[in-house]
């Protein structure tokens, strides 16, 4: 490895950055997580791979194989330097419940979660929405539009179909468009601010 080449210099954050925060982008396979992250990120999305043992996936009928095999889960992420002292990371993770244990520790400290939903496969989102509500993580829902997305879906219809709380923001999105992706993230952070505020209003 040659040090000091400009390609490698581009990897790094400005030395002035003192703090990083993170948001999670969660959803089923192929729902547009990596696309959304890539449309916002200042670096080409990076990928890490994490291993899970068969036991932690909860496959109890594979007892004989558990000691020999692990499952690799890929996670894509991107980065935005928000100002000279603050960087934001966006981590895309699969939504299924069986993957959550793996990221539970690593996802701690996230500001909030953007759940991407594909209206052609709404039922794929039920599990992750339930998990987020159980864990008390603030989240917003971004509905990604694909060419064959059913048009009869309105935000109100979707809210009902997904059984969302009245307060949970739902935004329509095209993850390929930087502006639409940024708007979805802005909606999420605004919501996180509102919920943090109301959490502070504790009765005396």
């Amino acid at each position: 490895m040659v040090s000091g080449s400009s390609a490698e210099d581009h990897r790094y954050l400005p030395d002035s950055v003192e703090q990083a925060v993170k948001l999670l982008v969660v959803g089923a396979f192929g729902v547009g997580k990596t696309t959304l992250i890539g449309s916002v990120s200042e670096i080409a999305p990076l990928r890490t791979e994490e291993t899970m043992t068969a036991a932690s996936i909860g496959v109890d009928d594979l007892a004989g194989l558990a000691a020999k095999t692990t499952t690799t889960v890929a996670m894509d992420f991107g980065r935005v330097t928000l100002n000279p002292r603050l960087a934001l990371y966006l981590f895309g993770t699969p939504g299924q419940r069986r993957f959550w244990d793996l990221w539970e520790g690593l996802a701690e400290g996230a500001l909030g979660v953007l759940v991407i939903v594909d209206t052609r496969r709404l039922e794929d989102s039920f599990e992750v929405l339930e998990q987020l509500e159980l864990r008390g993580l603030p989240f917003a829902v971004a509905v990604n539009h694909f060419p064959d997305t059913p048009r009869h879906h309105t935000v109100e219809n979707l809210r009902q179909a997904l059984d969302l709380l009245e307060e949970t923001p739902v935004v329509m999105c095209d993850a390929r468009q930087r502006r639409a992706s940024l708007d979805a993230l802005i909606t999420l952070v605004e919501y996180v601010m509102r919920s943090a505020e109301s959490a502070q209003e504790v009765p005396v």
Partner: protein
Amino acid sequence: MTGPRGAAPADYQDTPLRPYVLTGGRARPSRNTIALDTLLVATGPASDLPVSASRQERALLRMCTRLLSLAEAAAHLELPVSVVSVLASDLVDAGRLTARTSIPPAARPDQDLLQEVLDGLRKLR
């Protein structure tokens, strides 16, 4: 990168166990302060490491000559985050690596920080 709709993409595959070996059998870091977005930077050159240091520790320290998150270091080194997090913890304990820590797990982010995030995102529009 993405397979046909509905098919399990190449993202998810079964592989033989290996990373566990790299970290001397420890699956978890010695301290719990290193997260995906923890920023790391070396305090000195990798050549300062004792001869006993592992190849992976040297590689991580070289990767962190300038500021980078744990997740980025892991991605560039093509090692799992759990492995790099153990290596980073050890190097922080040994004073070789400085960690600019992220938000503590239990803490609620304050409004000023959230406002800063919001302002930054709005400026990008």
